[in-house]
């Protein structure tokens, strides 16, 4: 009403983003752009042999890897694979999980009870074990990795969406909409969804970060993306021998890429919705 009302907390308008989230947003944007435009940004193809093994930076920006390929080029193309798996699997798992969780909250009854059971049982399973078993049972192709990761994310998203949905669906305007005769999807889409966008956005970011760390871990173990392609975790794995000759860059560059991207994402998430971040810390 009046301009003297001050915004409380950090969740103000976009133009006064605090320093740390601003840095986070910039880093995430740079990584995504770098991944998208990778073919335009590199002078050597990621599979080309350009120099001797573990050549120091000079003719190439970051030097070369274990076989003498351009490390910078492999890093950018690795970002493509990492982000493709992370965003792809999260988007699938998230869409299905939200629909399931919100429907359970809205419908209630036996469907809600069944959902609660399934989620509780699956969440009692250590996620890394689930991932390892899934990829050991199915050959690790790109599609299967994305599908497996989506499946691992699903119960977590269902639980969050269900909890958020339960909070909102007991509010008066939702009751009114129901009394007016709106159907399930109309209630979900028009009444509930607009009111839960902020926590859902934060949850999406959280799940993307989680998927990034997960696929990196799997590939680092040699059970994710298979050579000659490599995501960031795979790059760490294939260059591990560099440490024996005291050259840390080929290992640390992809390792730091994973860490920097995850830190940047979490800085943004923490800013979007603090409680989401707290929850991640409690049940990861």
């Amino acid at each position, binding site marked *: 009403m009046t301009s003297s009302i001050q915004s409380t907390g950090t969740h103000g308008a976009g133009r006064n983003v605090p320093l*740390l989230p601003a840095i986070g947003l910039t880093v995430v944007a740079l990584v995504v752009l770098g991944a998208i435009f990778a073919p335009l940004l590199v002078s050597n193809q990621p599979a080309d042999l350009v120099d001797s093994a573990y050549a120091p930076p000079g003719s190439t920006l970051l030097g070369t890897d274990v076989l003498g390929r351009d490390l910078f080029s492999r890093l950018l193309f690795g970002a493509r694979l990492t982000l493709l798996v992370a965003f792809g699997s999260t988007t699938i798992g998230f869409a299905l999980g939200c629909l399931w969780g919100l429907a359970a909250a809205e419908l209630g009854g036996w469907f809600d009870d069944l959902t609660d*059971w399934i989620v*509780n*049982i*699956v969440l*009692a*399973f*250590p996620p*890394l*074990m*689930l991932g*390892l*078993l*899934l*990829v*050991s*049972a*199915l*050959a690790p192709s790109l599609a299967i990795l994305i599908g497996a990761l989506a499946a691992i994310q699903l119960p977590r998203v269902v639980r969050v969406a269900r909890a958020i949905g339960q909070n909102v669906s007991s509010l008066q305007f939702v009751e009114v909409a129901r009394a007016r005769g709106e159907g399930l999807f109309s209630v979900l889409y028009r009444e509930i969804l607009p009111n839960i966008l902020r926590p859902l956005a934060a949850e999406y970011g959280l799940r993307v*970060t989680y998927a990034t*760390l997960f696929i*990196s*871990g799997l590939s*680092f*173990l*040699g*059970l994710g993306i298979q050579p000659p392609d490599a995501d960031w975790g795979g790059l*760490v794995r294939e260059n591990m021998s560099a*440490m024996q000759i*005291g050259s*840390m860059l080929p*290992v*640390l560059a992809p*390792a*730091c890429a*994973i*860490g920097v991207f*995850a*830190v940047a*994402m*979490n*800085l943004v998430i*923490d800013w979007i919705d603090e409680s989401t*971040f*707290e929850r*991640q*810390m*409690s*049940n*990861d």
Partner: protein
Amino acid sequence: MLNLITRRLFFALLALFATSVIVFAATEVLPGDVAQAILGQEATPELLKSLRQELGLNRSPVERYFSWLGGFVTGDLGHSLASKADVLQTIKPRLANTLALAAYAAIVAVPLSVLLGIICAAYPNRLIDRIFSVVSVFIVSIPEFVVGLLLVSVFAVQLRWFPAVVVRLNWSEPLSLLVQLMLPMLTLLCTIVAHTVRMTRAALLDVLSMPYIEMALLKGMSRWRIILRHGLPNAIGPIASVVALNLGYLVSGVALVEVVFAYPGLGRLMVDSISYRDLPLIQATAMIMCLMFIIFNLIADILAVLFKPRGASVR
């Protein structure tokens, strides 16, 4: 309350059963014929048939599941496909190594993080609290194998203080063992301290916001006396629960850290057996890790219920 605990126990048992089904199913649907995989392409049909007979592959999956589960419960985990060694004997030393590392990390991490959590809660939003809050965002975000590699690059490659890999544990000299395990321990420490500090702080601040704390403050009690006498005892439940959760994580999620340090633990054994498609080993290692995870989760849940302040609702 008893009701809640039975409910949690019931879910844990259900999860255990589901775990055994998932583990069995996941390893059973492996592409290809196990007998063929063992004997190779040149195997004669007679050999294949007799090996299938020997492995019991001609029985129905349900039958095999129950005989496998029965064997698991009675300690008969079968024999490794690759080395023919008894699985139980293979796993025992690996499990001991993993537990030793987890215990080392826990003994250092738990007192340290609870202490840090108390300090952060005693001075909320002051400098030390803010510094730790930012630092914890960083530590939580970086995956443990990257933390491990960073530690190796600094303390093993540059400074040469600690060994970069742990190939055999030196049990005979406990002191040198502590030095030997320093880097893997520090890696695990980083991954659990941030969680535990944040949760300890939150639990304690929750208690400190209650009216009786204000009463104590108005009586003129000192900050530390209030925290130690009135705050901490009532925050023990959530803190203990977080600690148990992290211990579950320690024993079930160490595979990545073990691979970084070539550590001869259970996690690396599982990763190796997956690459060799050694079914009995995969099944046994996965079951044991899930078992420990579920048990620690159950302990965490029960602690949360037991210590729950009267009148507060359960999440």
